[in-house]
């Protein structure tokens, strides 16, 4: 969720590049809609996204059987840290020729690691736009 919130802060950069951003959830459309429209995880607090109701800028896509996730190699379907997890989150950047130029597996290593992750994605989108 932080990754999407951070991307929203950078949406001008994405639009300037004429790029498209998608976020794929291995969930049905109902739950994907909740993800898009309700700020459950970061809302209400004092953090940078606490007062916002929707923090997802990318176009949401529902992948109800996790098929796209499996094709892209990010499906996990396992327990992790006390929850059931369908996917290990990953970024993919694709250039104007349809070639994958960059894959990022966020580490979630620090509380603000998402900032560097999204900066790296924007840099790679710049290269992909050339």
């Amino acid at each position: 969720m932080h990754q999407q919130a951070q991307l929203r802060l950078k949406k001008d950069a994405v639009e300037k590049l004429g790029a498209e951003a998608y976020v794929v959830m291995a969930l049905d459309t109902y739950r994907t809609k909740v993800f898009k429209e309700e700020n459950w995880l970061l809302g209400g607090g004092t953090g940078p996204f606490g007062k916002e109701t929707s923090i997802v800028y990318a176009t949401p896509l529902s992948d109800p059987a996790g098929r796209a996730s499996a094709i892209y190699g990010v499906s996990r379907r396992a327990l992790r840290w006390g929850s059931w997890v369908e996917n290990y989150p990953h970024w993919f950047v694709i250039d104007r020729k349809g070639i994958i130029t960059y894959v990022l597996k966020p580490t979630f290593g620090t509380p603000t690691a998402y900032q560097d992750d999204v900066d790296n994605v924007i840099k790679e989108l710049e290269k992909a736009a050339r």
Partner: protein
Amino acid sequence: MKRTVLIACLLLLAPTTQSAEPLSPIESYRKLDFPPQDENFEKGWKDRVAADYDVINLADLTSLRAALKDGDPFVRSIAAYALGVRSDKASADALAELVKNDKEYVVRIRAVEALALLKMKPEVIESAKKDHDPGVPFVAKLVAGQVNSEIDYAAQIRHAYAAGIDREAMGSAVVGKPAPDFTALTLDGKPFQLSSVLGKKPIAIYFAAFDG
């Protein structure tokens, strides 16, 4: 002499090992080398995906219903979810029982999801919001609204699973190679094909978890 030769020939023709019956989808799931435990998160995921598809697409309802009482919590979990996806309303009471009394939170999570897909037992989903394990109330809150929706989300999921999954295609997205195509749904349920935008503009795709 003839009799001895005949017996020898029959012995030679007899199979030396019994040809094994193919495992049922539930048994295949039970025998996964890397069941969906935390420590297997990065291992054996392709097998788990394939096994999920087989259970949801192929397992018979009798086996799925029986599997709700299986000793393996992961078998109970996948059976619960599959019965929700298969819209098996006859399982509603058994699923509610799992939500209330199963000792494993992963089973309670999947049973809550199943009841929401069935659009049944909203009072049980409501009660799950007070479950002592945080993963269960989170899912209960997330899916509660499905009960009152006119959209058949179970059918949506069934349709997606029915497309099947090619094992060779799993994990085929690689840097330097063309992005594999996929089909997904927009929020209004319309199909989206990645190939409709590929090669036209730069694209960033984030495969997300709800909290990641």
